[in-house]
């Protein structure tokens, strides 16, 4: 099993997202995250998909996607240089003054942004790779477990220039 990345160009039509996610569900493929948005050509949507699979299943997934009528192009990002980022919000509640100061320092060091705060709650924004975001959660969990609301947005990726 290995983590893989795929980029899909699809027709921007009703039901295409359901078609693609339905393919993963119907064939029992393991899908980690899927993000979708329109491109510079608004008739085309671009999807970034991350998944866990073995080599043989992954080949089959690519073929299945390629044969879908609405799919224009499938690009395998697994072994090519890419930039990828995931957006994540972390809302930490029930903080003391001291803990709030901690979080502000944490944010500086680990390159997140403080988007909002009040007396007891701090809202952090992190736009980093998925694995970096995982590490951030682990770190925060040491001192703030059960007080963090996590909102993750899925990754987008683009080939390196």
């Amino acid at each position: 099993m290995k983590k893989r990345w795929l980029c899909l160009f699809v027709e921007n039509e009703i039901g295409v997202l359901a078609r693609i996610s339905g393919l993963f569900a119907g064939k029992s493929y393991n899908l980690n995250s899927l993000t979708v948005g329109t491109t510079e050509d608004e008739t085309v949507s671009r999807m970034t998909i991350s998944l866990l699979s073995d080599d043989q299943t992954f080949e089959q997934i690519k073929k299945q996607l390629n044969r879908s009528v609405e799919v224009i192009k499938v690009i395998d990002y697994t072994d090519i240089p890419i930039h990828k980022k995931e957006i994540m919000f972390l809302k930490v509640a029930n903080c003391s003054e001291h803990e709030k100061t901690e979080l502000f320092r944490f944010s500086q060091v680990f390159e997140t942004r403080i988007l909002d705060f009040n007396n007891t709650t701090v809202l952090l924004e992190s736009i980093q790779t998925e694995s970096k975001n995982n590490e951030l959660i682990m770190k925060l969990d040491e001192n703030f477990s059960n007080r963090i609301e996590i909102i993750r947005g899925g990754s987008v990726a683009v080939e390196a220039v």
Partner: protein
Amino acid sequence: MVTSGPGATNLVTGIATANYDSVPLVCFTGQVPTYLLGNDAFQEVDIVGITRNICKYAVTVRNRQDLGKIIKKAFYIARTGKPGVVVVDLPKDIQCAYGDDKYPDKIDIRSYKPNNAVHEGQIKKAIGALKQAKRPLFLIGGGVNIARANKEMQQLADLTGIPVVTTIMGKGAIPTSHPLYIGNVGIHASYAANAAINQCDVLFSIGTRFNDRITGKIDEFAKNATLVHVDIDPASISRNIAVDIPIVADAKKAIEVLLKMVTHLNCEDWIEQISSWKKLYPLALKSKGLTPQIIINKINQFFSNSIVVTDVGQNQLWTTQFLELDENKQMITSGGLGTMGYGFPSALGAKLGNPQKDVIVISGDGGIQMNIQELSTAVVYELPVIICIFNNGYLGNVRQWQEMFFQKRYSSTCLRYRKSCETNCHNPNEDCPEYCPDFVKLALSYGAAGIRVTHADEIEAALKFAKKNASAPTIIEFIINREENVLPIIPPGSPLNEMIMEY
């Protein structure tokens, strides 16, 4: 073409059946008006959503001006590449709106480009492998029949001298009487065909998916052979079986290229070996009396220009074993999905498309009742199809599995069962309750003809009568041995060489 809601959902099994066997099919479903979509309106159902995973393409028409283009696109997608099902959902207001009748001559879909080329380099590699072969074998699937490459396939066999086995969907790819034809492979195959798969050193397969009913235990399948696989669908290649030389191409085009490049191979010893297997274990039912084999043999003799459509179950398996096919005969069956109830309605389609041919349905007493209402369609459209019901009073194939693999615990398979019967009945006998319905009376009540055949010497007269009855369908009910089995059989999960020949 069906109405919305229940009309649309009634199509679902048919769509899945067609999709599995790569039948080009365009379905028009009614839908509530666009302004009511999503409102849980009367007879509204999201048929595009329901069929999304079982069809090639599904679309709701939302603008009247797109209608011509969408219909063009639908037929193009259904017919090209690996054929499949397209669902076009038509909301009521779109159906009734006036608009132009523009229908484009050509369609170009940027996301859908079926492959038309044949990679000659791969073909050369495959021929290279064949040249080394001592025991080569063609495995032919439904793809060859779909591509209508039967003539080319026969030429290829003649030219190379390589023996041929088929899947049940590929049956008829070359005439069954052809000296190089061995038989079907798979769990109810002839012994010789499966032995050939086991022993071959190059397996040249065209248009098959290596479905589990063909391969048996997958690790043992043709494990000494170099595998060549021609298929139009890249996703079919190396999915179940790792292939050495993949060729993505339409069967007919690939065979045409092959024909230009192949030479005759000397494999007389191999052919000799195969015919000795054939002699050792010929396909034949051991039982006496009115057997499916005798009936099918009579059908073989009686109808020279015909289409035989089977239902699903034992009737289908016997037909695939004993039916003889040539260029004037065709067999239609539900292979992938194995849909009971398939035989009779698809025979009506076959007759409508081929009025000059005799169309014969071979069905069981269970399957025929799953779409028996189509008798009225057949009578209304004056379609003289010949419906042969093999009546054993059981859902026979499931009963056979209950007998062989579940210690004869018959459950929900007896069609002569009554609630008052003994719960653990393992032995049908003369005292069993009457079968219902009475198929002869049933036929008459629809205005069709009905005959019951209980002895082998009545078969011919019944078929003769049915052939003459040119304006309405004829039901011939054959009362066969209640516990007749389909043999040989490979138990689930076993390799092809572990066939049960007698039981």
